[in-house]
């Protein structure tokens, strides 16, 4: 590869180089994850194809580097077939690099829904340590500032109706949701 400093300088200046960087990582890491998860679950490509409602040839292409244009919808179908969740988030390059460096294809696993006890029992996020997938504001809102506590997201919503729960993170953060605004408007 070219000298690192030259590539960094190019990335700082040119959007296409930044796109290339992200694409080159995802084009390897996504097929690698699909293959690892499939093998860990003892599935053949045709088995995964049945679960995801895709042809075996499509699964084969998804597991090869750069062979398939991956859409979020395709990843969602695969996640559902694997019975796992899916996180797509914007992240600093350093975090992306850490992810790539620490990714271990032979041990990679994502617990399937039927074994995801924390989710099945209704426990919320662990609040005793920073959660990199949660915004700082949401963490602070849930922990009451600096006070770390174990707890359930659902406990923060005690007494809230199903519709209230649909407010999402903005309710925790005290920001008015569209529904809040509408309700206030109606009340006025």
């Amino acid at each position: 590869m070219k000298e690192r400093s030259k590539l960094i300088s190019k990335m700082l200046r040119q959007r296409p180089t930044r796109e290339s960087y992200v694409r080159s990582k995802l084009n390897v890491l996504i097929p690698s994850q699909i293959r690892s998860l499939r093998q860990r679950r003892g599935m053949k490509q045709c088995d995964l194809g049945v679960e995801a409602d895709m042809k075996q040839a499509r699964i084969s292409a998804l597991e090869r580097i750069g062979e398939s244009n991956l859409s979020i919808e395709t990843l969602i179908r695969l996640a559902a077939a694997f019975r796992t969740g899916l996180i797509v988030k914007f992240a600093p390059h350093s975090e992306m690099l850490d992810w790539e460096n620490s990714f271990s294809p032979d041990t990679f696993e994502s617990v399937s829904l039927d074994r995801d006890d924390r989710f099945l029992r209704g426990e919320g996020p662990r609040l005793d340590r920073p959660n990199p997938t949660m915004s700082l504001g949401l963490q602070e809102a849930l922990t009451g500032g600096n006070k770390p506590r174990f707890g359930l997201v659902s406990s923060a919503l005690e007494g809230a109706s199903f519709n209230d729960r649909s407010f999402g993170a903005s309710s925790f953060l005290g920001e008015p949701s569209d529904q809040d605004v509408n309700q206030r408007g109606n009340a006025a």
Partner: protein
Amino acid sequence: MPNNKKVIPFPQSSHWRFFDWMEAGGSNPIQEWLDDQSDEVQMTFNSILKDAQKRRNHLEWPSYRHKMRDLEGIHELGFKVEGKQFRLLIKFDGAMQTVILCGCYHKMDRYTPTDALATADRRARALSSGKATKHERTIETDF
């Protein structure tokens, strides 16, 4: 067995190591080929090796294609970047060691350069006979 001849087992590597095939004179045609490619190809190439080095079974590498039918001991890795099919012709050489013999493109059963397969075969033979050497490739972890 005399006591002074202890057998020390060679530690089995947990990671694959990748080598560039090199002329006996010291030139590195693999690096030269790579230098001619776009940034994205170079970055993808590095990511492929980073992933492959950690996956013990080479048949499970996402880039692994097949063993070449008419070329003994030569295997093909493949990836697609910018709409182009790239191929790396490789040879396994020792425990968890892979030598990259040649880089090329592939389209409709044709390799570019057209003599890519012959080149890989010739280089593999030169390596086996000690007429060529190999240089370990550094897999960048800071980029």
